């Protein structure tokens, strides 16, 4: 059987196999209409354009912000640290899928002074504090022609995710061939995602930003930095670490 015929048969099988669904067109549209009417989304769009901050209140409410309120006012730092240890396992094993293969990975809890926790695969990466940001960097030394592999996390207190998305997108356009603002995503965490790549070579630089509302009008800026060929490796590993990213609000 020649390739062209195989292609035609696959296409036809998919068309035939999905014909039955088309009869639902009116029902689906009516449900959409009802939902839009219920939430008065026309108003939401208009509001979003004038006052975009409001949309991200929604993000904040689902951004896994955990408020730790403790009654003891003495030694708050130590009490907070203890509380975090009580709430989260210090280490655990996860299963992650990389290139279609499942891999068992041991991860360790890391707490940041910025007010978040994350589980890090410390066999491959080390978490370090840089000037005003945290870096989770690949431990191995790479050749000079390979972009560094790391994930930076910093907090910008006076800009919303949307404001930063516009600004970062413009900056990326100056340096990268491919730039995408992917809007709000739910995976690996609720955030605005930006993607940029400087070419199609195996070692082309890739950066991915996740802009997470900090719940106080500011943003956690998470920047993944790796190379194209590592998209399914380091890229997926970083994303999997972010599934457990949680903002911790320390309240006295």
């Amino acid at each position, binding site marked *: 059987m020649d390739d062209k015929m195989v292609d035609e048969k*696959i296409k036809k099988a998919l068309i035939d196999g999905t014909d039955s669904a088309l009869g639902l067109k009116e029902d689906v549209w009516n449900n959409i209409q009802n939902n839009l009417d219920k939430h008065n989304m026309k108003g939401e*769009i208009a509001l979003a354009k004038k006052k975009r901050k409001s949309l991200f209140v929604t993000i904040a409410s689902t951004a896994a912000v955990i408020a730790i309120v403790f009654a003891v006012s003495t030694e708050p730092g130590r009490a907070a640290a203890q509380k975090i240890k009580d709430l989260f396992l210090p280490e655990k094993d996860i299963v992650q899928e990389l290139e279609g293969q499942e891999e068992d990975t041991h991860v360790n809890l890391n707490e940041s002074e910025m007010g978040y926790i994350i589980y890090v695969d410390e066999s491959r990466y080390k978490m370090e504090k840089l000037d005003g940001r945290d870096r989770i960097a690949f431990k191995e030394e790479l050749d000079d022609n390979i972009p560094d592999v790391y994930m930076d996390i910093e907090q910008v207190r006076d800009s919303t995710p*949307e404001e930063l998305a516009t600004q970062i997108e413009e900056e990326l356009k100056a340096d990268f061939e491919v730039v995408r603002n992917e*809007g709000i*995503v739910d995976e690996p965490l609720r955030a605005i995602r930006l993607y940029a790549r400087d070419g199609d070579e195996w070692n082309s630089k890739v950066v991915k930003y996740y802009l997470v509302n900090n719940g106080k009008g500011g943003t956690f800026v998470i920047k993944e930095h790796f190379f194209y060929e590592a998209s399914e490796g380091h890229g997926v590993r970083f994303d999997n670490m972010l599934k457990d990213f949680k903002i911790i609000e320390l309240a006295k």
Partner: protein
Amino acid sequence: MDRDIILKVKEGDRKAFEELYNRYYSYALRTATAITKSTQEAADAVQETFIRVYRNIYSFNTNRPFKPWFYRILVNECNRVMKDKSRVVFVSHYMEQDSIHARKDDYHFEEYEELYAAIEALSDIYRIPIILKYLNDFTEKEIGEILSLNINTVKTRLYRGRQKLKKSLEKIEERRIEHG
């Protein structure tokens, strides 16, 4: 042009949104049905996709193509509904469509039915790129963007998925010859 419609949707124009729905509905629902293996879950995914499109259209950059952006949301919604709902063993839904059956000769219907079943049996990493390519004519690059995969991975997955389907087709053909 999508761009003109989208600019109107950005302004909250419900008529333009309906036009966008009419333009994208059919293949969105086919795609979601093939991915979720369920008409009802597909309808849920498509419904949520259009609502999310409407809500997030303000963040869409109109200098970029709309279709891959739309399908990225759709695939995410399909994954979400599949994760949310407990799954049941899939029963081929087109078995209910007697009117379609009657128009086809038995052999060809069975061949496409079996091939569709073979597509459904592929693991997701092969199945979803195959659906995006053959139902929607996306390029490998676009599939990579929709699924956040690098282009070489997409090529490999399409190649392997296609090889598996080719083998299935050959087996279907052998059976047909054996049974005269």
